[in-house]
């Protein structure tokens, strides 16, 4: 007969036992340290409020992480409705005969001095970092989750509560903006 372990909660030890783990989890998914701290704090508060619903089936940390995940999705819902829209420039005609064709002012230009501007260059890293910082938060997060954390598409969709086609639109626009930013600030100089 296997014995079922009944897990318990001990809020007085939460901060020492879990705050680093939760913070590290959050910081890769949101914009700033401050925001990550706030979300961790809210997670603990919600945990306290919901303690009576804890049935002891999951470990304490797993239970807290499930609350944290909801908080992160909520955060994305919020920025999506508030100011996530229309922050990235449009690159193509949106209606009419030319729908889906390049807008003239957004057509990529030849990068004339490509050969001498080696991509290993450390100054290039600075320009690239700046361009990424200039992306709207939602675009930056999705782009970084995909490129730096190398998450699977499905994972990102689940965590941020978006669909796969949403995700590709976001990455598509983020990369358009990055390309343009590198063109203007690196290759044009």
């Amino acid at each position, binding site marked *: 007969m296997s014995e079922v372990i009944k897990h318990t909660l001990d*809020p007085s030890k*939460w*901060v*020492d036992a879990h*705050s*680093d783990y939760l*913070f*590290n989890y959050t*910081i890769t998914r949101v914009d700033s340290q401050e925001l990550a*701290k706030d979300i*961790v*704090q809210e997670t*603990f*508060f919600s945990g*306290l409020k919901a303690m009576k619903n804890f049935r002891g089936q999951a470990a304490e940390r797993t239970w807290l992480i499930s609350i944290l995940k909801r908080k992160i999705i909520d955060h994305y819902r919020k920025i999506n409705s508030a100011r996530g829209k229309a922050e990235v420039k449009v*690159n*193509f005609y949106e209606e009419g005969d030319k*729908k*889906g*064709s*390049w807008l003239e002012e957004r*057509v*990529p230009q*030849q*990068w004339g001095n*490509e050969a001498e501007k080696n*991509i*290993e260059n450390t100054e*290039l*890293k600075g320009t*690239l*970092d700046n361009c*990424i910082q200039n992306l709207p938060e939602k675009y930056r997060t999705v782009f*970084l989750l*995909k*490129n*730096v*954390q*190398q998450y699977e*598409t499905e994972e990102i969709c689940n965590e941020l509560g978006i669909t796969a086609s949403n995700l*590709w*639109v976001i*990455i*598509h626009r983020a*990369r*358009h903006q*990055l*390309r343009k930013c*590198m*063109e203007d600030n690196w290759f044009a100089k």
Partner: protein
Amino acid sequence: MGLKLFISCDEATTICTKNQYKEASFLEKVKLNIHLLNCKICGLYSKQNTKLTDMCNTHLQKPDCEQKMGDADKEALKLKLKEFGK
């Protein structure tokens, strides 16, 4: 026939981006290549998009250490939790 082989520049560049992550389907790649036969602008975009991937692969790396919350922040958080629990 619902099969549409000719796509717009907007669609072509989206597929090009998916392809940077090796996530474009076979049919999508066929459509992209047909589009690229006729569209120099997307050809240039495609080349630069690949270069962007190289730049990102060269310069963007995962931070190798775990990020931690500062001790002062932790103490403040403990106090707030205590207050909240009352």
